């Protein structure tokens, strides 16, 4: 039996784009336990309800996270709409779903790149991010910003996607689809990538269920959990099935996310084929009075929004539960018995978004 020692990991580490600190209790090369220390990105965003009114908070909610920014704004807005009893026009619903799926595309491509960087495949990382820039160009075309859109408002959306824009988007998506097919070959069939990912960080269906994991991380272990099936926005009109794998290792998580890229492209095509004509927003009066909870599917999994209003400008409470927060117990579970050299891969495999988690 070897000697126990504690290896600090983070908060500043080459493989981590964001700070998280883990104390790894090691015995030789094996990890016995990982103790997380978080709070490096904590800003106290939910406390801003005391200073900003509920409309300004849309822009604050979007800045919970720069990657799934649009969906944070959307989730918060939909919670307000539920409290105030606003029914938004159908076209606005379809537009919201379009941007959600574009966000999922850019988030998954970003993650694939970071994963490739994590196992030392630099050129694959660059390739993923080159494709991702095409999606960001579409963001810029439709809303004029690359990451933080600020296109939601209570009662609808601020901008429309015109038929010309739809044509450009579909043409770009055709190119993106071809290019993702190329990198998918490397991710799924390359011998060296397979030997780095297969059998690493295995979680069974029972474990994932007990630890309450969410999103692609849970779906890779066989849990059929996709909030889009709850039927918010345009999803009731769209034909799709949650993508599930049963292996539960890093390779399965990579597989699920690559297949979700094609799913998102397909969903956007269906949305444009079925998009109704009409207004993009309805006028709204009054202040939110009451409380509501909304669950939406983000690129990283299920996010829950809770808002309580009191009929005045300033809200009583806003609470966001983010998918990475749900996945952290799963991450710590995968680390038990893993090698030190696999830690970056394991952290990346949950697609961590620390700024969401700590807010």
């Amino acid at each position: 039996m070897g000697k126990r020692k504690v290896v600090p990991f983070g908060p500043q580490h080459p493989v981590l784009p964001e700070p998280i600190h883990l104390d790894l209790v090691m015995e030789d090369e094996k990890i016995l336990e990982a103790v997380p220390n978080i709070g490096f990105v904590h800003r106290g965003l939910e406390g801003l309800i005391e200073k900003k009114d509920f409309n300004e908070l849309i822009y604050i909610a979007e800045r919970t996270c720069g990657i799934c920014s649009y969906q944070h704004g959307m989730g918060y807005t939909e919670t307000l709409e539920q409290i105030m009893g606003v029914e938004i026009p159908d076209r606005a619903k379809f537009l919201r779903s379009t941007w959600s799926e574009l966000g999922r595309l850019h988030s998954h491509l970003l993650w694939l790149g970071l994963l490739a960087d994590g196992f030392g495949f630099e050129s694959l990382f660059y390739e993923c991010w080159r494709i991702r820039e095409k999606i960001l160009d579409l963001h810029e075309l439709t809303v004029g910003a690359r990451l933080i859109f600020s296109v939601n408002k209570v009662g609808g959306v601020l901008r429309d996607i015109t038929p010309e824009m739809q044509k450009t988007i579909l043409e770009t998506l055709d190119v993106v689809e071809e290019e993702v097919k190329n990198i998918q070959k490397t991710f799924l069939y390359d011998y060296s990538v397979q030997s780095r990912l297969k059998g690493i960080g295995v979680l069974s269906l029972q474990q994932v269920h007990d630890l309450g994991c969410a999103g692609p991380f849970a779906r890779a272990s066989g849990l059929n959990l996709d909030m889009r099936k709850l039927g918010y926005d345009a999803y009731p009109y769209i034909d799709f099935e949650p993508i599930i794998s049963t292996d539960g290792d890093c390779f399965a998580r990579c597989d699920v996310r690559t297949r979700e890229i094609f799913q998102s492209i397909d969903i956007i095509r269906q949305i444009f084929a079925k998009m109704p004509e009409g207004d993009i927003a309805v006028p709204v009066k009054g202040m939110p009075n009451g409380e509501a909870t909304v669950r939406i599917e983000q690129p990283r999994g299920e996010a829950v929004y809770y808002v309580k209003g009191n009929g005045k400008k300033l809200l009583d409470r806003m609470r966001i539960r983010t998918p990475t927060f749900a996945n952290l117990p799963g991450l710590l579970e995968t680390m038990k018995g893993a090698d030190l050299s696999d830690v970056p891969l394991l952290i990346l495999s949950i697609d961590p978004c620390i700024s969401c988690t700590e807010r």
Partner: protein
Amino acid sequence: MGKVKNSPWLLHYDGSSCNGCDIEVLATLTPLYDAERFGIENTGDPMQADILLITGGINTQNQEVVRQLYNQMPRPKVVVAVGVCACTGGVFKDCYNVLGGADSTIPVDIYVPGCAARPQAIIDGIVKAVELFQKRSDRHDRYEIEQKEGGNANG
């Protein structure tokens, strides 16, 4: 950009940013914007870094980390604050846990505006940082030569 003799290395640290500027910094280093053509190289080690790119504001938890990273970097060094949060605290200025911009803890040389800062703006900031680093590096070299010559004259 003037003549650059040295190749400064770059360290990126995420303060309490929302990730937006973070991934824009990474996007700046990838092929489409390719900031590495200015001779810089991204490193994860503060002891080998010359330029510190900091995104996001400072909070009570990461203040020590930022200070430590800055102190570990060898002289001469340049600090670039990327995004409004790193410049002033941005939308999170009023949050109870945010102490302010990066300059509340370490001296900042260059401020890059934007929420999230665009790659073009970040490239501009990096180019200015490379220029400033070259100036400081020259002055540092001159100072060392003067010290040496002065020492010889006295001895």
